[in-house]
């Protein structure tokens, strides 16, 4: 294990008050006794944490899913039924899995120039949309939107034909955002269109409070307001996934992109439009 303390020249832990127990900026937990600094654990790199978090918790999540399967043998991680308790357990587990995947994303979505069979897997789009519309409706929180209805203008025959796991993750982030930030009792629209080359464009429209600085929306740590439901990483992460997708797809033009536009309706209402362009379909 790498001991960062040996390489740390500033030793900020030594200048802390007596009886301080804290983590320094290198991630080492320490306790200042006054006469010495006791480390409470070895430093662990973010890579180790994220990698092992996924490795260890995946087994726990699979255990939850398997037990839900015993309650009702028909439940599936691909289709969530909000009326079925076993299916809701599966849905809630998927949310945890998505979150862990984001945290450990540096490992999980590292792009490679090597060919992989799962890149070309053909997956129907509409079941993915329906899955996440339901999955994110399961989170009940006072600050989350209530009674959002969705106008889904997507054919049941549309396929994602390239790196569908990345596309699915980007879609799930945009749907989660709709559930987080829409005004109550509003309608959100998800619509597909196709370019002359056959690439898919997906637009997500929802009504929310106006955002003060919409041009920063994809930046890490961006929050609409202090008490925001999000922690400012989702859209930043979506953009990283777009980069990964483009690295894998090796296209020089018609590359994948996400754009955002805000159309202010009045001082307390705006339409947020996110557009994913050039998904291979």
């Amino acid at each position, binding site marked *: 294990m790498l001991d960062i303390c040996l390489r740390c020249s500033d030793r900020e832990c030594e200048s802390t008050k007596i009886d301080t127990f804290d983590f320094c900026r290198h991630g080492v937990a320490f306790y200042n006794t006054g006469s010495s600094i006791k480390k409470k654990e070895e430093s662990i790199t973010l890579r180790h944490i994220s990698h092992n978090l996924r490795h260890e918790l995946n087994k726990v999540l*699979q255990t939850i899913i398997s037990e839900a399967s015993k309650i009702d043998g028909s439940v599936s991680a*691909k289709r969530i039924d909000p009326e079925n308790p076993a299916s809701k357990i599966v849905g809630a587990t998927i949310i945890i899995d998505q979150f862990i995947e984001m945290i450990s994303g540096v490992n999980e979505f590292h792009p490679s120039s090597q060919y*992989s*069979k799962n890149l070309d897997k053909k997956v129907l789009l509409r079941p993915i949309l329906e899955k996440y519309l339901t999955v994110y409706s399961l989170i009940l929180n006072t600050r989350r939107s209530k009674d959002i209805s969705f106008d889904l203008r997507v054919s049941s025959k549309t396929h994602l034909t390239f790196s569908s796991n990345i596309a699915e993750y980007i879609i799930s982030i945009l749907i989660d955002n709709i559930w987080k930030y829409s005004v109550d009792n509003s309608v959100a629209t998800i619509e597909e269109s196709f370019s002359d080359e056959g690439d898919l464009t997906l637009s997500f429209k929802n009504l929310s409070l106006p955002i003060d600085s919409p041009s920063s929306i994809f930046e890490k740590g961006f929050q609409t307001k202090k008490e925001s439901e999000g922690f400012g990483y989702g859209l930043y992460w979506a953009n990283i996934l777009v980069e990964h997708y483009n690295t894998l797809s090796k296209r020089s033009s018609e590359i994948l992109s996400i754009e955002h536009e805000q159309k202010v309706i009045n001082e307390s209402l705006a339409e947020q439009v996110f557009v994913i362009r050039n998904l291979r379909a």
Partner: protein
Amino acid sequence: MKHKIINGLGRFLMKVNALSICIVDDEEIYFNKNMLITAENTGFKCIERYQKIDRDLFNRLQEKPYDIVILDIKGITDPDIAKDGMQVASLLNRTTNSYIAITSAHQFHLVNEMTNVDYVIENKLLTSADFIDELIEIVDDFIGKKSTFYKNVLFKAGFSMLKKIAV
């Protein structure tokens, strides 16, 4: 009633001429007992489940190849057998006619490493029903790619009946 008869006949034919399937994963919770029972009840009668590839299984995989082999990547081999599941997959792909699928909870194992295999199971969390869907997709692909016309002909007839009901 009609579905019940077709389902029963399909499962009977699949049993008479069963495909041999071998699954190796060190974690018991993946491809667990409940999933295997569901698979058996669906008509996949000949699934063997191992946690590790020892010398005997390693020899068996090469000398009397299974129709389908599903391999985890990490933790299923000792160093004197092979580096990891991917190396076993590569060997079987070159030396046998087995249909090889690999799986890992880590996406980067599936993307970064050599994946010259027939199928990649990329769904990380599977219910028993999802496992059956995945199995049907694998067997369907196997029949199209690696099975000769006469081989497992009864299984194929039974499987096509099952698929019609499942879809």
